[in-house]
C-alpha cells in the first residue's frame, strides 16, 4: 500500500486528503489552522486522518504540500531584510521601477506608492560593466565591492541579492561578487540574478531575485521546522511542495528557489481540478475557486492548465512560471453597497472577511454580503447538515433590506441583484482567461470548488454557455487533492533574442539539450529514475519588434522533425487566434526554456456505489428558494448518501460537510461514477 497525503494550509482551515495510491480510496479531514506555527495544525490533521484510515504516519510515503507562506511573507511585508548590489548608476532600479502609475488620467493623485522590496538604504552600486552583447566594458572594482559588502553586512541585512546590468548575458561579475560575499558574510543567503532569472529587463530580473531573497529565510525556516516535526511524528516519506506552476519540487529545492512558491496555494485547486476532470472524462475545464474574499479562475485545455511567465502577488509582478490564475475580489464575504452619487449597485472588492464576516454568521458582521444574499434567497439553508453551524436568516434579511431600500426595489430582487452582480464579476474573470485568449467557452465545462464555488457554478455556467457545471467530489478540499495528485516539475530558462532567420537550428538544439540535461539531472538527484523523466521545451516567439512573446511548447522529437520553421508556423496560427491578424515581419526567438517532469501518476478515483437513478434516499427535507422571480419548492439532499447515476432535478440543494451545491430551476444534476455532480440545462 502506498499512501500520498496532500495538505493545504489556508487562513482558517488546514485541509488534508489521504490517498491510497493503489485503490483510489481517500479520506479527508479539515482542522483549524494554527497561524503561529502551521505545523501544529498540520500534525493535528495528520494524526486525525491516519486514525480515520487506520494507518500509521510512517505508512505515508509522500507528503505533498501547498503553502501560502511565501505569498504571505510578501503580502504582509514579513520577508527578510534584503541587501542589494547593483551596477554603478542603477542604485534606484527598485525605487524608479517601471515609472508606472496605475489608474487612469490623474490616477497619481490617489496612488500610494509601495515601498520597494529591497530598501534603497540597503542598496549599493558597484563599478564594473557588461555591454548588451555580454562583453566586459569595465572591470569589476573589487576593492569597492568588498567595501559595499562589509557595509551591508554591518547594517544587519538578512539576505543578499546581486543584480547587475546585462548579467543575463554574462554572469561573471555577479559570480565574483558572490565569492567575495561568501568570504565577507558567510551566513547570509545569496540570490544572483543571472541564476534566478537569466532574462532581459533589469527591473523585472532584479525584482524577481530580490523577491527570492526576501522569502528565502522565511520559507527555509518553515520547511525545516515542518520537516523536523513530521520526522518527529514518525513520518519518513519524502516532503515536496507545490510550485506556482502546478508541479512539485523537493522541500530542499524550494528552500533555494522559494520564488517558485508564490502562487502555490491557488495552483493546488487547479491541479485538483485536472485530476477530477481526468476521472470524470472532462478534458476542457474552467475552474472557479470561490473563497471568502476572492475568486480564482483558470483554464485547463486537454487536461493541461495554461501557464504564464509572471506571478502576480499584491502589487508585484514577479517573473516566475505560474499557472495562469486570475483573481477577482468577489467571494462569499464581498460587501454590497450603493454609492450615493451614482445610485449603482456595487459588490466588492471590499470584504467582510472571516471577521466580522457575513451577517448570517453572527460573528459581528453588519454589512450585507454575498453569503447573506444567498441565505435570503434560500440557496444556503439555515440548518446545515449536522446543525453545528446555524445561519441567522433574519439578520441577513435586515442587512440586504438596506440595499433594497437604496435601490427602491424588493428584498428578494435586491438579494438576487447582489448574486447576479457577483456572478457577473466571476463571469468577467472567466472571460479574461477564455474568450479574450481566443477560446470558445462552449468547449469547456466549469468546475466550482472552494467553500462557495458549487453554489455559484450553475449560474456562471449559464452565463458562459459552458456545460456541464461540475461540483466535484470533496469541493472543499480540492486543493489538498491537487497537492496529492500532481507530479514533479522543474525548469530552466535562457534569453536568446535573435531573429529566427539568422539562427542556426543546430545551435538552438544543442543549447536546449544542454538545458534539458541540467533539468533532468535535478530530478534524478531527487531520486526519480532517469527513464521516468519527461523533457519538454518551450520557445518564446514574437514578431521582431513586438513586446509580447507567445510561448510554444514542443518536445525534442517534433522540434528535430519540423525544425524552427514548424515553430514559426505554429506561432503564426497562435497569433491569429489571439489577435486576429498575422504580419510579414521576421520572427524573433526570444527565450528558451527546458522543462523536466517526473512520472505522471495514474491515480484512479474510487467508484461510487451505483444507485437506481432516484436520489430519494439522500433526501433530507423539502425546501423553498427564489427562482425566476418567485419562491418555488425545492429539495435538500445529503451528498454522502447520493449514489452513482442519481438524477437530481432542479431546483435542489446538495449539502455536505464543508460545501453546498445549488442546482438551479431548469437544470438537472447527474451523479457520475465517482461522485461528481454534473449539472446540465434541461
Amino acid at each position, binding site marked *: 500500500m502506498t499512501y500520498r497525503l496532500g495538505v493545504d494550509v489556508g487562513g482558517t482551515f488546514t485541509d488534508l486528503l489521504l490517498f491510497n495510491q493503489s485503490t483510489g480510496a481517500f479520506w479527508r479531514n479539515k482542522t483549524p489552522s494554527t497561524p503561529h506555527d502551521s505545523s501544529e495544525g498540520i500534525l493535528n490533521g495528520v494524526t486525525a486522518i491516519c486514525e480515520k484510515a487506520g494507518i500509521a504516519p510512517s505508512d505515508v510515503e509522500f507528503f505533498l504540500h501547498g503553502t501560502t507562506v511565501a505569498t504571505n511573507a510578501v503580502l504582509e511585508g514579513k520577508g527578510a531584510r534584503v541587501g542589494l548590489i547593483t551596477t554603478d548608476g542603477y542604485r534606484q532600479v527598485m525605487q524608479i521601477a517601471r515609472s508606472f502609475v496605475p489608474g487612469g488620467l*490623474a490616477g497619481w493623485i490617489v496612488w500610494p506608492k509601495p515601498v520597494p522590496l529591497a530598501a534603497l538604504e540597503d542598496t549599493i552600486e558597484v563599478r564594473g560593466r557588461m555591454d548588451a552583447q555580454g562583453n566586459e566594458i569595465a572591470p569589476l572594482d573589487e576593492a569597492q565591492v568588498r567595501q559595499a559588502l562589509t557595509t551591508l553586512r554591518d547594517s544587519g541585512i538578512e539576505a543578499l541579492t546581486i543584480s547587475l546590468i546585462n548579467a543575463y548575458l554574462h554572469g561573471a561579475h555577479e559570480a565574483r561578487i558572490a565569492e567575495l560575499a561568501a568570504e565577507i558574510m558567510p551566513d547570509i543567503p545569496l540570490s544572483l540574478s543571472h541564476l534566478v532569472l537569466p532574462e532581459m*529587463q533589469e527591473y523585472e530580473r532584479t525584482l524577481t531575485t530580490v523577491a527570492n531573497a526576501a522569502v528565502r529565510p522565511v520559507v527555509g525556516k518553515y520547511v525545516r521546522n515542518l520537516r523536523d516535526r513530521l520526522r518527529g511524528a514518525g513520518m519518513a516519506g519524502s516532503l515536496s511542495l507545490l510550485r506556482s506552476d502546478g508541479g512539485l519540487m523537493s522541500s530542499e529545492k524550494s528552500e533555494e528557489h522559494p520564488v517558485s512558491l508564490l502562487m502555490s496555494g491557488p495552483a493546488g485547486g487547479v491541479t485538483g481540478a485536472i485530476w477530477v476532470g481526468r476521472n470524470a472524462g472532462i478534458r476542457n475545464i474552467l475552474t472557479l475557486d470561490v473563497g471568502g474574499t476572492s475568486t480564482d479562475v483558470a483554464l485547463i485545455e486537454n487536461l493541461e492548465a495554461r501557464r504564464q511567465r509572471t506571478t502576480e502577488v499584491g502589487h508585484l509582478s514577479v517573473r516566475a512560471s505560474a499557472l495562469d490564475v486570475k483573481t477577482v475580489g468577489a467571494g462569499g464575504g464581498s460587501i454590497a453597497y450603493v454609492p450615493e452619487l451614482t445610485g449603482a449597485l456595487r459588490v466588492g472588492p471590499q470584504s467582510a472577511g472571516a471577521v466580522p464576516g457575513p451577517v448570517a454568521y453572527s460573528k459581528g458582521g453588519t454589512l450585507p454580503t454575498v453569503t447573506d444574499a444567498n441565505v435570503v434567497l434560500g440557496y444556503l439553508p439555515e440548518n446545515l447538515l449536522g446543525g453545528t453551524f446555524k445561519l441567522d436568516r433574519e439578520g441577513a434579511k435586515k442587512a440586504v433590506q438596506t440595499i433594497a431600500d437604496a435601490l427602491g426595489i424588493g428584498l428578494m430582487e435586491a438579494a438576487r441583484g447582489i448574486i447576479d452582480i457577483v456572478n457577473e464579476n466571476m463571469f468577467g474573470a472567466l472571460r479574461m482567461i477564455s474568450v479574450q485568449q481566443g477560446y470558445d467557452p462552449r468547449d469547456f465545462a466549469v468546475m466550482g470548488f472552494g467553500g462557495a464555488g458549487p453554489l455559484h457554478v450553475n449560474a456562471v455556467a449559464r452565463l458562459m454557455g459552458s456545460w456541464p457545471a461540475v461540483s466535484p467530489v470533496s469541493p472543499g478540499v480540492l486543493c489538498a487533492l491537487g497537492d496529492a495528485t500532481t507530479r514533479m516539475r522543474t525548469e530552466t530558462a535562457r534569453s536568446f533574442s535573435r531573429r529566427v532567420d539568422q539562427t542556426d537550428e543546430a545551435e538552438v538544439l544543442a543549447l536546449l539539450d544542454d538545458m534539458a540535461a541540467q533539468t533532468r539531472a535535478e530530478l534524478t538527484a531527487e531520486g526519480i529514475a532517469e527513464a521516468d523523466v519527461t523533457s519538454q521545451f518551450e520557445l518564446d516567439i514574437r514578431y521582431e519588434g513586438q513586446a509580447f512573446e507567445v510561448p510554444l511548447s514542443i518536445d525534442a522529437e517534433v522540434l528535430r522533425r519540423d525544425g524552427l520553421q514548424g515553430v514559426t508556423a505554429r506561432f503564426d496560427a497562435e497569433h491569429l487566434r489571439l489577435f486576429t491578424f498575422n504580419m510579414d515581419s521576421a520572427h524573433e526567438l526570444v527565450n528558451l526554456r527546458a522543462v523536466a517532469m517526473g512520472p505522471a501518476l495514474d491515480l484512479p478515483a474510487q467508484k461510487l456505489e451505483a444507485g437506481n437513478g432516484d436520489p430519494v434516499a439522500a433526501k433530507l427535507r423539502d425546501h423553498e428558494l427564489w427562482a425566476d422571480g418567485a419562491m418555488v419548492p425545492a429539495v435538500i439532499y445529503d451528498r454522502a448518501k447520493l449514489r452513482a447515476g442519481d438524477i437530481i432535478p432542479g431546483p435542489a440543494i446538495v449539502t455536505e460537510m464543508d460545501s453546498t451545491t445549488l442546482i438551479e430551476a431548469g437544470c438537472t444534476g447527474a451523479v457520475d461514477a465517482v461522485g461528481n455532480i454534473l449539472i446540465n440545462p434541461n
Partner: protein
Amino acid sequence: MPAQIIQANQTPFNAVPVDPVTLDIIENALRNARIEMDATLVRTAMSPGIREQGDAFPLIADHTGKMIVGQFGSYIGPFLDGFDGTVEDGDLIFLSDPYSVQGAISHSNDWLVLLPVFKDGRLIAYTSMFGHQSDIGGMVPGSMPIHATSIFQEGVRIPPVKIWKQGVYNDDLIRLVMHQTRTPDWCKADLNALIASCRVAARRVIEMAARFGDDVFTSATTLLLERNHRAMKQLIASSISEEPVTFEDYICDDGMGYGPYKIKCTMWRENGRVVLDFAGTDPQSRASINMLLNENMMRMFFGIYMIMIFDPQILFNDGYYDLIDVRIPEGSLLKPKFPAALSGRTHVLGRLFDILGGLLGQKTPEFLNAAGFSSSPHLFYAGTDSQGKWFQLFQIGFGGIPGRPLGDGPDGHSLFPGFTNVPNEFLERYFPLVIERYETVADSGGAGLHRGGNGIDMVYRFLEAGTIAIHDDRWFVPPWGVNGGEPGARARKVLIKADGTQIVVGNKIEDYPVEPGDRLHFITWGGGGWGDPLDRDPALLAKELAQGLVTEQGALRYGVVLNNGAVDAPATEALRAKMRAERGDTGVFNFGPDLETLRANCLAETGLPAPIPPRWANA
C-alpha cells in the same frame, strides 16, 4: 455637411426600462472590453513608444458617438459634424489631421482609427483608438520639428479616409501613407494593432447586445450617460463656486528663442454649469508648441480631475458634457489658425493639468496638489550606423510627481496614465548606446511636508554618430509648490563631449549632431512640494540622506541640520525657529521668483540665455 449614416435597417432603437443590476453589468462589461483593447494593443504594437510606453488611447462610444468608456473623451461627435462622407457597415475610418476633427487628436503623429459597429444592419456603437506613431515623415526624424512654422512641415496629414470601405480593403491608400514614413515597419504594426483593438471591442459590443437585446443595450448606454450627468451636476453644485477663480501658468519657450507663453483660465459656476474661459491666454506661436484644444477633451479633463480630487469612486463618461462651457479665444495658443504647426503640443497638454489642479484646489487647499504634470520630455536619436543600418529612437522620459495631500510625490514616475519606461537593457540591445546612469537627482523635488518627487538624470553614451532632438519644458519657469511647499527643481540637459567639454544644450532643440563617446545628461524636473517643509519629520530627512534622495545641504531647506547622517536636534530646532521668524506668510501657491528675476538670473542659473518675450503683430 455632417456625415451620412447608411443603415440597411432603419428601425430606430426603442427606449426600454433597464433594471439597475443589468445596467451595472453592462457598464462592467464595457469597461472590461476597454481593458481588452489596451491589452491587445500592447501585445501587438511594435514601436517602443506604444509597446513599451503605452502612448495610445481607446474608447467605446454609443451609436450617437458619445463616449461610454475611455480616457480622453469622445471626438466622434465633432468628427461626424465635419465629415463629408458616409458611415456604412464594413467601413473603417482612418485619420490624423487635427484640423479635420477640431483638435480631437492634437498632432499628426497620432493615428486614429474609428470603427462604426453595425448589428443586423443598424449602427449600434463605435469603437476607436489612437496611438502615437514614431515617425510620419516630415523635416526631422520623429516628425515633431519644434521649429516648424506650418503643419505642412510635420509629415503626412491624413484626412478622414476609409481603410475599409464596405468591407473592401484599400491597399493603395496604406502603401501611399507608409511611403511617407521613415519607420514603415513600426507604423504598419502599430496601425494593425490599433485596428485589432477596435475589432476586439466591436465583437464584445455585439455579443453584449445579443445577450441583453439591442434595445436594452442602447437604452443602458443612454442611462449610463444620464447617471454621470446627475453625479456631475451634484458635484459641480457642491464644489465649484459662483465667484470666478483664475489661474495662469507658462510654457517656458517655443524652441525659437521666445517665451514664456502664458495660459490663463478663469472658472466659475453659472446656472448650474461650469464655465472654463481661457481669455487672456497668449496668441498662437509661430513655432510648433501650439495645441489645438478640443472643447470635449477639455470637458473630459475637467471631469476626471473633479472626480480624482473630490470623489475617486465615480466612473466617467461623456454624459455631463453639456454642464461644462469651454471658451477658447480664436488664434490663441489653444486655438491656433490653420496651418499653424502643432507637433510640439505636448508641453501645453501637460500644463493644462497643472492649471486644472490649480483652479480646482484654490478654494479648497486641502485638496490641492503641487505642480509637476509639467512635461512629457522627448528624446530623439537617429542616424545611420557603421553597418549602414538606419536607427531611430524616440523615447519619453519622466520626472518628479508633485507633493500631494496623500503624501510625497513618487520619484521619477509617470503622470500620464499607462506609461512605463523602456528597460535600459532593451535600449542597449537594440540601439547604439549605453545608459550609464538612470537615477533620480537628490534635492530636485520641492521641499514640503510632503516633498515633490525627484526628477531623473539619465545618462546616454552614444556609440554612433547621429543627430539628437530634445523636447522638454519647465526649464525656465519652475513647477510650483502649494500650502507652504517649495517649487521643484527645473529641467536641464548637458552634453559632455569625449574630451570632457561640457555644453549646456537647450531643452527644445532639433538636429543636434552627436559623436561616438558623447554623453548626454537628460535631467528632468522635480515635482513641487506640498505643505510646510518645516513640519516634515526630521528623521525622514536622515533616512532620505542615507537613501541618496536628499543631501545635507538640501535638508537645510526643511530647517533640518544633519551631522554625519544623524539629526542634530537642537540645531534643527534653532534653525526652524529662525526660518519661521524670517519668512513671511507662505500663501497657497509658491511660484518661485517672478518672471523678471528669472530672466535676470537665467544664464547664471541654467546656463542658457533667457527667452525673449514673444511679440505679436496684432497684440
